[in-house]
């Protein structure tokens, strides 16, 4: 009875995702871009819900909309954005890049429709299986991922921590530009 709802929601979400993503690529104001990216992520969470993956959707909101967008906004804040003509926000190769990407994208998108439908899983209730598999079957990648987070943490710290005693620099000191 609500059969039409799902396609409509899908259509709206799709338009949201693609339009927002397109704006991310095309706009020049970086804060707007960041917010539009967050909007894309948000729509994506909707997609996940539509697909019945509630837990993933929740993670999506938490991690992408929450953490990653915030990180990127911090990055935006810390750096000065240049003011210049619109065209200069783009690479010189932009037309070529657009053409090549389009040449790949069109057939691939058409091919995408050829994936056959299977029996859809019942929506919802994916938290428990997700959690058990994550800590059961997926123990190895999970541990590797945790090491990855640690490594990223260490890496990020070593790259941005304030210099106290160790900078510069003996013979290694290179003149700053």
């Amino acid at each position, binding site marked *: 009875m609500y059969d039409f709802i*799902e*396609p409509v929601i*899908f259509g709206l979400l799709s338009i949201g995702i*693609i339009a927002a*993503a397109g704006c*991310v*690529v095309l706009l020049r104001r*970086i804060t707007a*871009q*960041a917010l539009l*990216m967050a909007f*894309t992520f948000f729509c994506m969470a909707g*997609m*996940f819900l*539509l*697909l*019945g*993956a509630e837990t*993933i959707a929740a*993670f999506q909101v938490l*991690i*992408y909309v929450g953490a*990653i967008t915030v*990180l*990127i906004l*911090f*990055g935006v804040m*810390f*750096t*000065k*954005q*240049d003011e210049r003509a619109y065209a200069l926000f*783009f*690479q010189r190769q932009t037309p070529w890049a*657009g053409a090549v*990407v389009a040449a*790949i*994208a069109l057939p691939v*998108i058409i091919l*995408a*429709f*050829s*994936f*056959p*439908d*299977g029996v859809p*899983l019942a929506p919802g209730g*994916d938290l428990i299986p*997700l959690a058990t*598999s*994550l800590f059961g079957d997926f123990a190895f*990648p999970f541990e590797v*991922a945790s090491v990855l*987070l640690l490594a990223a943490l260490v890496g*990020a*710290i070593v*790259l*941005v921590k304030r210099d106290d005693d160790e900078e510069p620099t003996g013979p290694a000191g290179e003149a*700053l*530009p």
Partner: protein
Amino acid sequence: MTVPLGAFIAVSAALFFIGAAGVLMRRNAVVILMCVELMLNAANLALVAFSRRSGSIDQRGSVFVVFVFVIAAAEVAVGLAIVLSAYRNRPSVDVDGARAMKG
């Protein structure tokens, strides 16, 4: 009526290539990073859609997405750290300015 799997995948492909186009077109390192995130998200959409709609043997796709989250976060953290570290030496996020090495 359910939305066919193909439609989800098509949307994900579209998003992937929009992100890819962004990487190729933009000069701002932070924007490129955003575009990469869009691409990862496109993969996420495909993984979840496959996992839930294609009658897969297993649902590893959904779990894969969780790992992608982690990886994306780690990537962004390290990426921003690199951008900021470079920014200290050369206060610009324009990647076209970073061409001390070429040839």
